[in-house]
């Protein structure tokens, strides 16, 4: 059994406001091992982004803890990288593609050659080596998201967190990007926590799918996806097992939406 990389324990987040408190996350606990690709799905408005921000140290949870590599997360940890849904607002338009990928590496103590090597390697991994000197806004949406992924890859994080990264791109681009994520995971052994609202995407990508309930959120199911590691958009999605799994997750989400699932211990 590989070591635990990420541990979320009894996480709770309440937003306080003048009009009353909103409990976004009720009680979430799950673990993730090094080298795993875990997908988190849930009905819309279930606090997925809140959960991610707590894990990434961008938000302080009301209760509970997040541990990365045995260390408690209180601020953004240095060994974690994020890919946001809004690629257009996450890349800096005044920097070139290369400049964007280089930016987080500037304060890492690396030699020039080593840094350049990391950037070239990351850009090649996402298939953008020829666009290094373009500006992000000169690229299509899918290409821009590739730049954001390259930036995260070059950063060499222990865990990569992706927040609905492909929600804003068209279906064909999306399939390509999904395969890119699978490839990064298989070829580089990257640990990836992937949040999505797309059920098919979660089953296609993940080795585990964590299904969240509606808000105030808890983990409704932690499902192992027993599909072969080598996956293919056509044949994998045509497998009977794939259909079974997606149907199962779909039903879970429907139950979550209706609030039928009963929280254990309550």
């Amino acid at each position, binding site marked *: 059994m590989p070591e635990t990389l990420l541990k979320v324990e009894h996480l709770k987040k309440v937003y306080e406001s003048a009009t009353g408190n909103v409990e976004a996350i009720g009680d979430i606990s799950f673990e993730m091992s090094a080298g795993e690709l875990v997908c988190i799905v849930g009905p819309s408005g279930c606090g997925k982004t809140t959960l991610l*921000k707590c894990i*990434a*140290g*961008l938000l302080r949870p009301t209760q509970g803890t997040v541990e990365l590599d045995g260390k408690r997360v209180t601020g*953004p940890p*240095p060994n*974690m*990288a*994020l890919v*946001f849904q*809004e690629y257009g*607002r*996450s890349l*800096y*338009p*005044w*920097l070139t593609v290369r400049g964007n990928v280089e*930016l*987080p590496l*500037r*304060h890492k103590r690396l030699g020039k050659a080593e840094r350049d090597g990391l950037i070239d390697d990351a850009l090649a991994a996402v*298939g*953008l080596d*020829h*666009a290094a000197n*373009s*500006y992000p*806004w*000169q*690229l*299509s949406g*899918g*290409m821009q998201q590739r730049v954001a992924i390259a*930036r995260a890859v070059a*950063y060499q994080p222990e865990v990569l967190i992706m927040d609905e990264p492909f929600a804003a791109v068209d279906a064909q*681009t999306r399939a*390509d990007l999904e395969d890119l994520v699978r490839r990064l995971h298989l070829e580089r052994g990257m640990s990836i926590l992937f949040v999505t609202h797309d059920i098919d995407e979660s089953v296609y990508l993940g080795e585990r799918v964590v299904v969240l309930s509606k808000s105030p959120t808890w983990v409704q199911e932690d499902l192992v996806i027993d599909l072969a590691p080598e996956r293919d958009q056509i044949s994998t999605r045509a497998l009977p097992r794939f259909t079974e799994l997606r149907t199962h997750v779909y039903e879970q989400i429907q139950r979550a939406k209706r609030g039928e699932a009963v929280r254990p211990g309550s």
Partner: protein
Amino acid sequence: MTLYTSTVRVAPQRSQAWKRTRESILYALGLPFVLLVLWGVWATVAPARFFPAPQVILEAFIDTWVGPAFVTDVLPSLGRLALGILLSIAVGTVVGTLIGLNRWLRELLEPLLEFFRAIPPPVLIPIVMLLMGITDAMKVAVIVFGALWPVLLNTIEGVRSTDSVMTETARSFALTRGERLRYLVLPSATPRIMAGVRQTMSVALILMVISEMFASSSGLGYRIVYFQRNYQIAEMWSGILLLGLIGVLLATIFSIVEKRLLRWYHGIKEVERA
């Protein structure tokens, strides 16, 4: 991967580009030329004491400003103007960045800044004169005090409105303070800052002239008032012409610098329009 598609922009044919430039120059100069001709005709048909013919003003322009007056009057004015503008931009961006980044500082100072901005700067000339005497420093101080506000307030606003996702990106990648300032806050505020600089420059030009009209024995503003009091009408007009030309020169320098600094910004606008 062959997914990347790029639009290759082919440079327009040389003859075409030349034609377009010629056309735009013609358009730019056409109306002024027509107006000048009309003015010239009018001045010959019905000569008026206070509106001399354009050729008279042109002659006065050359006689007045090409020669020693350029050194005694034009250069000192331009020097004070340049110093005033540079100081305004430097103080405005530095102080504006500090205020923009500190919430409590902002809340503390903003009402005060709005008040200072609302004071018409020329009314400060008598006070500054008392404090600093009739010196170059006094004129520069007047220029800075009036011209500072647009760039200062725009910098505060620009620094404050840094995009939240961009800020979260910087936080999640643990960028240092210096990196955040250099690669995020300042570039993203630059469009706002440049809008402020544009206003600052025109206010500075106005204040340069006014401060010289009030209290000076040299400079463009002083000269124009001097000519007016001595009924040297053509010379007076030539001074106004020179001021107009300085204004155009400033605007040209500004647009060259702005195009360079904000290439990305105009690039995005172009993509959005397409």
